[in-house]
């Protein structure tokens, strides 16, 4: 199929960006979206134009590196998918596709479609872990955990940290991301001990880093490539409330 691509190009963080239009022909419907961009980049290199920069690594939907805003949707038109797992069969011959980076105050653009998501690391550094050192821990089967709790913790833990939730939210809130980690650890006896402290410090960090507030529109859940539910936000709110009451 032949396509027209409108791609956001921006030299670096301090430059102003703009859309450039490229055409590309003979795209296979079985190729992935990023493979389509590879082909475009090869074409640009032949023309001695600098290729388009975008983040990607695993191309299996698990590392969370990739993340493009495609035709106004995080990770494009498919449901529960990352950009690297989006395939061209979701588009038609003759389509015009608009490709932008994530847009959020907390995720400044680095170049073209690449953004800085280090704010997510900073949030997790503020408490998204269980405080245990290596060694000296009990046997793995010493504390039985109900299967339901383990499964639900796993649902939350599948977050890949791509940032689609933030890019989709009109307030650029990181609530789904934060609540997934808080919820995963609060559901497990190992993480429960620190649950309230964790919730409090992660929220403080999130506010400090310029993410917006959650107004419960649920848009984030719809675009999450891993289908993480906003039910975790509710659990998070409980932990947070308990922490406030105990203050």
């Amino acid at each position, binding site marked *: 199929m032949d396509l027209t691509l409108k791609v956001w190009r921006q030299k*670096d963080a301090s430059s102003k960006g703009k859309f450039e239009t490229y055409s590309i022909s003979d795209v*296979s419907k*079985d*190729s*992935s979206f990023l*493979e*389509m961009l*590879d082909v475009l980049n090869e074409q*640009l*290199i*032949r023309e*001695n*134009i600098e*290729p388009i*920069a975008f983040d*990607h*690594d*695993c*191309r*299996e*939907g*698990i*590392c*969370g*590196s990739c993340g493009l805003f495609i035709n106004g949707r995080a990770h494009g038109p*498919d449901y529960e*998918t990352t950009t690297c*797992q989006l*395939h061209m069969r979701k588009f038609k011959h003759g389509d015009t596709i608009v490709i932008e980076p994530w847009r959020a105050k907390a995720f400044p653009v680095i*170049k073209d479609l690449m953004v*800085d*998501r*280090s704010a997510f*690391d900073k949030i997790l*550094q503020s408490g*998204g*872990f*269980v*405080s*245990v050192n*290596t*060694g000296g*821990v009990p*046997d*793995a*089967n010493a504390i039985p*955990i*109900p*299967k339901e709790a*383990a*499964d639900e*913790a*796993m649902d939350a*833990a599948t977050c*890949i*940290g791509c940032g689609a939730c933030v890019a989709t939210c009109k307030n650029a809130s990181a609530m789904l991301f934060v609540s997934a980690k808080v919820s*995963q650890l609060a559901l*497990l006896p*190992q*993480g429960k001990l620190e649950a309230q402290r964790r919730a409090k410090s992660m929220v403080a960090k999130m506010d400090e880093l310029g993410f917006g507030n959650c107004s419960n529109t649920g848009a984030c859940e719809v675009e999450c490539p891993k289908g993480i539910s906003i039910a975790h936000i509710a659990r998070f709110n409980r932990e947070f409330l308990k922490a406030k009451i105990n203050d």
Partner: protein
Amino acid sequence: MSKLESKIPKGDLAKKWTNYKAEQKLVNPANKRKLDIIVVGTGLAGASAAASLGELGFNVKSFCYQDSPRRAHSIAAQGGINAAKNYPNDGDSVYRLFYDTIKGGDYRAREANVYRLAEVSSNIIDQCVAQGVPFAREYGGLLSNRSFGGAQVSRTFYARGQTGQQLLLGAYGALNRQIAAGSVKMYPRTEMIDLVLVEGKARGIVTRNLITGEIDTHFGHAVVLATGGYGNVFFLSTNAMGSNASAAWRAYKRGANFGNPCFVQIHPTCIPVHGEYQSKLTLMSESLRNDGRIWVPKLKEDAEKIRKGELNPGDISEENRDYYLERRYPAFGNLVPRDVASRAAKERCDAGYGVGSTGLAVYLDFKSSIERLGEDKIRERYGNLFQMYEKITDEDPYKTPMMIYPAIHYTMGGLWVDYELQTTIPGLFAIGEANFSDHGANRLGASALMQGLADGYFVLPYTIQNYLADEIHTPRMDINQKEFIQTTQEAKEKLEKLLSIKGKQSVDSFHKRLGKIMWDYVGMSRSKEGLLFALEEIKKIKQEFWSDVRIPGDPASVNVELEKANRVADFIELGELMALDALEREESCGGHFREEFQTPEGEALRNDQDFKFVSAWEFKDENEPPILNKESLDYEFIEIKQRNYK
């Protein structure tokens, strides 16, 4: 010639590690604060090492090329992690895990290292559970296990089809905790491009900041490489796009021996290649072989019709299906080790029984398991893998069998290390997939995660102290001293040279050409003739690369083409060493199959008389062939046998 001292502790196999720990030197807490350790890589090996060393009180600097340590390639591991817990009470033990690993590796791994790995495996599971890793559980609340290839017990722990993700997020959490505590300083989007030696010891690294293009140097009393494997030499592999060999390769060029470069693992169950534009291959976890049965049509006519699209797999009756693994290897069936399963698939396809439009595919069929267990159970076990398969191929594996074919997946070879995980350069350590140590000529499934975490949590934090205890009087070095400046200069010159070529061909076009040669001649099946041809071709690619590569853009900013070119330059040289190693090893063992050396039934024919050693290659200089050093493998505790999975 460097001397290979494996430093295996004396005594009974089961006591070696205990004895080592009892006798090794340690560093006291006050001195730990004075010592800097560089850890390159934040996969399972690097993240666990950096976190554990930080907890102990060392000053750690941690590096990765991704924007976040959480995105290291380990995140993609699917199926599971082994440990000799024997929770299912099915006869497992430390000895059995050790034995299976040595046998699986076709008797080309070091006994003492592998035993230690099996010994600490249980601690890993305890550690991960304590961190909040949500492993799969049974209704009684206890941990669940599954089986992997090459074992007759169920010792694999898993978190759906995302085990690597969950283990890495656990290690990343521990790392984050140390970053917050100030004991680890994290440098993401930073690529190591050279190693600094001072008076023969590893003392630092040269890095390129992938955002600003700045070249910096960092000092460490010791340097740890946890930079993963080199499967991307083949261009198409299951590795992440950025996985590279550069850190290990630059260390090789500074004097570290490279162990068994030709030992690469070809995974039997990957989604087949489907087009020229393809950028990578996707693994379908080995765990699927627990419930999936592998087959091709028994009749060539049927296979032909399927390839033309005139028949569907469902049209082939039971008696006309050839479950060739169950037929050839009744004892292990679909769960034979990877090298055996891969070769068997190639054999069927080469003989004309392959399916899919290219004929380079076999079926992995879940029909009988779905009938036995129900679709829900299968969804619970493998849901995310099935979904991934459907996204890529547009076919529903609940309804029609998956199509799979072998692909490059893992590299057993890597930097040569001794029992302490130290390379031949004093002060330079290598852990995880980056070293050659534990898997011999073939790795068993679910053992890479185990090894990465064993190295990082439980081995290196001990052994590195034996080295550092003698470094407490070494002050932090000034990065303006001559060795640092000199190495930086050399690394810069290399980049400038690449940029100055201004040729016509893209980096990827060279990488694809290299990959094709490697796959055809240094892949699943190798011969003297083919290897000699490959060596010639690789030389040509190298020459053309250095005279005609095109790298647009500016070096002082994000420049993805420059990053790739810098890596591909190393892949080309490493490809050459792999071919040379494969040529020298005149036997078949594990993943290394030389056509000239096979049994009448087509099984790999090992030659213990002449090749029971580790090949450790030593770089001389650009114009001289490397030297082959040999570490003899002495099996004191187990009897060497012909591998048999029948």
